[in-house]
């Protein structure tokens, strides 16, 4: 069974640009979660999507947004990039009705 996949693996942007990160969940999973992991820090909850709807959101500004597509894949958009947005962005997927989360390998975003 294929795990959670994320693309790209690395992304380099300059301040003020927009970044788009993509996530494909495990087959059968309807929930997708996004987290930010800054260097040396724990994971910070960004967004939770389930059945195409945004269900919950962490304490991040509105320039962090995303969506979930009918096939349950998801993308995270970060607008007006700032230097402190440099981090590993992790996507996790989960089966219907359960909290269990399975993480992908992440996208490392570097903002110059």
């Amino acid at each position, binding site marked *: 069974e294929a795990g959670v996949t994320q693309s790209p693996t690395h992304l380099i942007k300059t301040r003020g640009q927009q970044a788009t990160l993509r996530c494909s969940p495990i087959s059968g999973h309807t929930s997708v979660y996004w987290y930010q992991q800054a260097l040396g820090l724990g*994971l910070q909850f960004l967004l939770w999507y389930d059945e195409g709807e945004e269900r919950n959101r962490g304490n991040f500004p509105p320039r962090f947004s995303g969506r979930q597509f009918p096939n349950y894949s998801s993308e995270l958009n970060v607008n007006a990039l700032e230097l402190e947005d440099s981090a590993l962005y992790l996507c996790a997927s989960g089966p219907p009705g359960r909290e269990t989360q399975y993480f992908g390998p992440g996208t490392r975003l570097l903002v110059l």
Partner: protein
Amino acid sequence: QQQVKQSPQSLIVQKGGISIINCAYENTAFDYFPWYQQFPGKGPALLIAIRPDVSEKKEGRFTISFNKSAKQFSLHIMDSQPGDSATYFCAAGDNFNKFYFGSGTKLNVKP
């Protein structure tokens, strides 16, 4: 405000020893407490999880101890092996599937 506090930040254990990592939380609405293991360059992998209605859960060499009144939970790794060397994260989730992670513990098991 840090919802989940994890300690220690780093831990060195001899092969065969017991590794203990502790976490504390404040929000009594949390009802799901997973532990994750993360190797460099990889995403976190779910190790074991517990709900507040049990005080202990064991899976192989990994045990979660949960103290609801103290709002604390801990991970015990028995017979620690060099392959267990990784960063461990505790987490707490509420019934809105919002998860808060601890800051992580870097475990080094010496051969």
